[in-house]
């Protein structure tokens, strides 16, 4: 460690202790004030450690990162164990185990099917043995086959047929004369020109966009021109998404800074 490194480390330690003491001192004297003070300080420390990444990679970020990886990996294992194994599997395959875990047993005449995933799961673990690795492909084949079968019909139905169906918008509108047609360039229903223009944009936008995704035809001539319009439409889409997203990202930062300024330092309302 360099000299500045040691100085920074000492400063961080001192600040940590100060924060702990102050937070514990202002905490609820009836509750676990020492523990709560530590926890808030630790959370704030981790928040700042991650933010320090913006300046450059450093040991504090490394610490937060490594801690995060370890804790989160275990988090999922625990949840999967309790909610899926104990919650969904055990009640269906064994009454004794259900009683041991105190979950209601669910008898059913097709419950023996639930041994299939158990067997497949064990086959998956065969990877760990040097010779049985190839058997671990079977559960994989099962998972992929199932999803492929489900996706095949589902996407055809929801994403494909229904999306085309929604593209059928009337391009013409009730004709009530030129004056009326152009009189109201507003977004609501009375703006006939706007409504019709919008429908045209959607319709031809979808068409050109779909043409851009043609893979087996060279994009030249009128086809190339349509595909070019298609990419422009896609660019508007991407630009709009990007612009719209900024809002969400700022909110997240607001949430974090609120924690630091209000919950930790107590200086913002």
């Amino acid at each position: 460690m360099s000299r500045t490194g040691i100085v920074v480390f000492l400063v961080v330690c001192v600040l940590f202790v100060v924060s702990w003491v102050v937070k514990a001192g202002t905490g609820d004297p009836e509750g676990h004030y020492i523990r709560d003070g530590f926890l808030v300080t630790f959370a704030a420390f981790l928040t700042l450690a991650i933010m320090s990444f913006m300046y450059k990679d450093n040991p504090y970020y490394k610490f937060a990162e490594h801690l995060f990886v370890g804790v989160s990996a275990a988090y999922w294992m625990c949840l999967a164990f309790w909610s899926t194994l104990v919650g969904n599997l055990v009640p269906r395959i064994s009454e004794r185990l259900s009683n041991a875990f105190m979950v209601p047993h669910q008898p059913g005449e097709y419950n023996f099917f639930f041994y299939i995933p158990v067997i497949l799961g064990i086959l998956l673990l065969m990877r760990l043995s040097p010779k049985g690795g190839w058997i671990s492909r079977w559960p994989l084949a099962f998972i992929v086959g199932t999803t492929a079968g489900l996706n095949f019909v589902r996407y055809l139905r929801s994403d494909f047929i229904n999306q085309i169906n929604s593209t059928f918008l009337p391009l013409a509108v009730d004709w009530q004369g030129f004056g009326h047609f152009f009189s109201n360039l507003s977004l609501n229903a009375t703006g006939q020109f706007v409504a019709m223009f919008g429908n045209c944009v959607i319709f031809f936008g979808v068409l050109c966009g779909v043409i851009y995704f043609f893979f087996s035809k060279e994009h030249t001539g009128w086809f190339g021109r349509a595909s070019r319009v298609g990419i422009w439409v896609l660019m508007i889409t991407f630009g709009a998404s990007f612009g719209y997203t900024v809002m969400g990202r700022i909110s997240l930062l607001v949430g974090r800074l609120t924690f630091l300024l209000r919950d930790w330092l107590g200086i913002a309302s």
Partner: protein
Amino acid sequence: MWNGHIWGMKVHNLGVILVLLVIGSGLLWLLARALRGKEVDRRVIFAFIFVSVAAPLLITMTFTFRATPIVEAVFDKIESLPPGSHVLISYDFDPAMAPEVQPMANVLTRHALVRNHKVIFMCLFATGQGQLNVTLRDVIAADFPDKLDGIDYVNLGYKAGNEGVLNVIVSDFKKMFPTDVNTVPFDSIELLDGIKSCKDLDLVISIGGGLPGLKEWILFVGDPGGVPTAGGVAAVVAPQLYPYYPRQLLGLLGGVKGAAEYESHFRERYPQFDDMPTPAIIMMGPQTIAHIVIMSFIVIGNILYFRERRKGRRV
């Protein structure tokens, strides 16, 4: 907040002016540098964003909002359902997304309860449970202490399996949720009488922003089950859901702005909640400043780009 007077001027306003002055002059300095063709270090940009978000938090700036039709549609639906209707609210988000969507979850729950609907909570994100507890604590325990678990609302908790869960509950709730989160058996929960599957619900609301989320609710529950579906999502996925509106999606709260609109609208209609927390409205202050800063950066970046290109041509 500290709110004294200095030289007859309200400090509150002075703070606002000061913040705007600092950010404005900083941007002018950057603009001057750009005109001379100097690139900016990334860390300077980061510092600008930090200041423009932190400052409005210290000196509260709020604006009022008018609900757009797509937000109003959700409000009107909850308003028009007869009391006692079953409304399902699914927490499909984790703490990281919470600042953006938790306000929606809270205000929607508050609205559903004030209309005396029966609310069913569940989560498709494991970490959604923690967020659900926030609503139970901040909304139900705080403002509706007389509402009872199992009668006025029920928490079914989390089940792993993403859209697989939806695939099951669209035809059979009990299969996926044999018990609620407190291991009360499904059949003995009074609120769930007559609720067999999602098809028996009057409204399904998904609050989220990742996968699985509102889109999966539409594809796996709303569409096949014919259940009215609405939602609140992080701004990032909102444009993606427009294609489903209004046919497959009843209405949508997009990002904090959507939440702020809902909060404004709700408070207007129910003045008794005038002093309820409105995190989304407060959050729109930093939003505005940060947006302006980012736009300025786009402009400055382009000035730099055109300068360089002209220089390149001259050589």
